[in-house]
């Protein structure tokens, strides 16, 4: 367990929003499913404290980037299914571009040699 935990990365401020938007691009999902998807798609490297998902979801609703509807969960109870709005979709593009630029820039700073090789 200990080694596993060391390998896991705490999420950067704001990136959770991006990940949620990205996850919802595949279709509506409820809170638990979103958390699961983020963990799984990052091959369990990104560790989301599942509770922190909820303030992020509310923030996104507030900004009008996602909306929600109610539907049945695996437990056959009511759950909220979140989905991207049109604005959210646009925002995802903006954020993804921003992220790519940021990641590229950081990578260039950290590994200037590799860039030369390429």
């Amino acid at each position: 367990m200990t080694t596993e935990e060391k390998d896991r990365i705490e999420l950067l401020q704001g990136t959770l929003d991006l990940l949620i938007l990205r996850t919802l691009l595949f279709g509506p999902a409820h809170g638990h499913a979103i958390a699961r998807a983020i963990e799984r798609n990052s091959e369990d490297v990104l560790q989301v404290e599942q509770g922190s998902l909820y303030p992020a979801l509310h923030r996104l609703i507030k900004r009008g980037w996602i909306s929600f509807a109610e539907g049945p969960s695996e437990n056959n109870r009511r759950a909220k299914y979140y989905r991207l709005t049109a604005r959210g979709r646009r925002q995802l593009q903006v954020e993804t571009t921003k992220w790519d630029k940021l990641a590229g820039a950081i990578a260039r700073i950290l590994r200037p040699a590799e860039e030369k090789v390429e």
Partner: protein
Amino acid sequence: MSRRKSRKKMLVDLDEDIREHIEIETRENIENGMTPEEAHYAALRKFGNPLLVKEDVCAVWIQQWLEHLGQDLRYGLRTLAQTPALTAVVVLSLALGIGANTAIFSLIDAVMLRMLPVKDPQQLVLLSSNQTKAVHGAPEYSGYGISLSYPGFLRLRQNNDVFASVFGFVPLGFDTESVAVKIDGQPSLAGGEMVSGNYFDGLGVAPLLGRLLTADDEAHAAQVTVLSFPYWTRRFGRSPSVVGKTIFLGGHPYTIVGVTPPEFFGVEPGRSPDFWVPLADEPGLTPWGVTAGSGQSMFTQKKWWWLMIMGRLKPGVSQTKARAALDVWLRQTLTGDLGMQEVDARTFVMKADPASRGLDSLRSYFSQPLTILMSVVGLVLLIACGNVAALLLARAQSRRREMAVRLALGASRSRLVRQLLTESLMLALAGGAVGLAFAAWGAPLLVALMSGGAPLPIDVHLNLTVIGFAAGVAMLTGILFGLAPALGSTRANLSPALKENAAGFQRRPGSRWSFGKSLVIAQVAFSLLLITGAGLFVRTLMNLEHQNLGFDPYGVLLFGVNPRQSGYEGPRLIDVYGGLLDRVRAVPGVQGATLSAFTLLSGWVNSGQIAVENPPVKQDEGASILWNVVGPDFLKTMRIQLLLGRDISVNDTASSPHVAVVNEVLARKYFGSLDPIGRRFTFGQKFNPNDAYQIVGVVRSARYDGMRGDLPMTAYVPFTQAGEPGAMHFEVRTAGDPTSIIPSLRRAVQEVDSNLALSDVKSQNQQIDEALAQQRMFALLSCFFGALALALAAIGLYGTMSYGVGRKTNEIGIRMALGAKANQVLKAVLGEAFALVLIGAALGLPLAFIAARFVASNLYGLKPSDPLTFVAATVTLLAVAALAAYLPARRASKVDPMVALRNE
């Protein structure tokens, strides 16, 4: 689902969402092979602290709200700063409106709402009976409900199970300053109260200095006194060494034992005693300043009711229960021991009224004027609000494009409305703050106006209630005048607004205009109501001031003395008055002097019934008459015209036959066309030849009790023949300014006896001014507020008309290009303005007519429907309206067609 609703749902459902999340995780964990318990804890661990999550979620929304508020405030400040003139006009009109309301409210708070500054005031009740007339000798004084006789009080205090404590109090005279005081050899006058030993304890008042009165003081009639804070400040400079000092009250030594705290003023707002002494047969001091005659003490008489009593209810005892218990107990006691007759007991009612705000004499005197004034300033505020709404409406109209653009870009309407409301609330609160400053400055001025003579001891400093009131009014007006423009300009009808061109060509005529116009109509109606009221009050004051008083008030100086408090009694008392009169007449500049029990229009009178010997009057015809006890030459000095017979003279002494002078209305009522001279009458219900007064003169009727109503039937009897005189007042007629002889008068009185102090020194005209204080205040304030209302309405009309002219510049230009004359344009605009004003006036006149009937009792010498006032008010309104409408009309007539058309 609307956003607001969805947000609320999000928060409400959060718990459920979290629970659901954890359960799904738990299920997955079980499917992965954990035991149910392990699975649950693992799920919880993974989720993190739900409480923190909930807090974070709330923070998200609060943050948004604060962000929006901050944006709104910043944006609002910017927009307001862009139009400084508009902002200033709005803030100032609101400040005037809110300030006036707050000033009047602070008086209402002080007089009608504030609780006594004592412990648990809501437990206090005041006992008062309806029996003052039936009980022999009880002083009748408006505002006071006499509670019981002293023996009755003692029994009640010992023997009742509804009150935690029962305490009594009684003033030492009818006037505010009625006790002769001597401090370090200096004579002066002060007002005091006798209170039972448990008075301070029962009220829950703690001493500021020394101690307060106790049951022991009462039991032993200790010659001790407690000073009030203002008196201690005034006379002793707040010296802490007054405790233990001896002062003379009514000529006898009393030791100061303590001082009450600054906020305590007794139990009657507006009448604050200077000192308190124990309720007992104290030397030199008597309840109400009266003596029982025949040497009997007032404290032993069962049938003489003179004491006022308050009780503090035991916890859990309701007022109803207390009243019932009290009633039973009193009936038994009264018909038994206290010597009340059966017939009295049947009609007897003892009230136990809530006394949390103290005795209500001030309240009953001022509640009607204050209510009228509050309605007046409320209307002024409404008119001011109308202006502000119109101005904001006009501005909102010019911002329609901005709003439409923002709506089109996806701003929600509620967000825009909120932003506009924030702006109007900012205006309102700024107006409220300035208004509060106006009120702080104006309220003491109002108190001075209302009191006439000596200012009433009312505390109108700003307090939390008053500040809260101002803030509340400001908020309310902010919402009231801000909502309509905000809703109007954000109406979700985008395309016409977007299509409007820069010059603001109006494609939807009428819809907003009607609101702006109805505002003007309402303002005109309300201001007409207010100026009509002002006219009625001014005419009333003029009628009161210019009426024929029946005597000549010019050049007369009044002052009172009370030699009885310096030890004079019996024949010596009559002699000292005679001596004083001689000495006063010798003062240079004095043309004549006399004395009387009460000066004219002081507010004090003797009243009662008389029975005439011949012709006899039937019992039910015997109306109440007024009488005064006067010295020689009273009628001559006051210049009351003698019609028949003679004046009261020096020769009417205690031993000569009893005589009286009556006035014309009395003579006509009792004797008709018969000659009244020589006829006899008795005070009381039955003629008694042994105690009769013979009429020796008839005079013209004159004002005595007040400035209003019919001239009272009045009888004048010599002060030597009407029992032992109490305090008397002198009337001194001078050639010039009567107040200039005050110093020499003081010296003259001191020469007769250095212990005598002068009270109520003022000219007769000052006294009349004081009697008219309330009326003058009404006239002044209603004029001020009427003018304010009229000015506000004129600004409203002017603003609306110029705005309309500005918007219609194109149209006017086209008309003029097509041949319309400047005169015609002028007429058209004026006509439109006058249509509004006339509709307003047509609504305002009936309103004023109805409102005037409510103040009918405050009017004098004219009907509430006084045609002159109504016509004058309407003409004033039309004149002001014409002026306000002329400027924009002239601007319209000067429109250059070419310029206007090029503007398009």
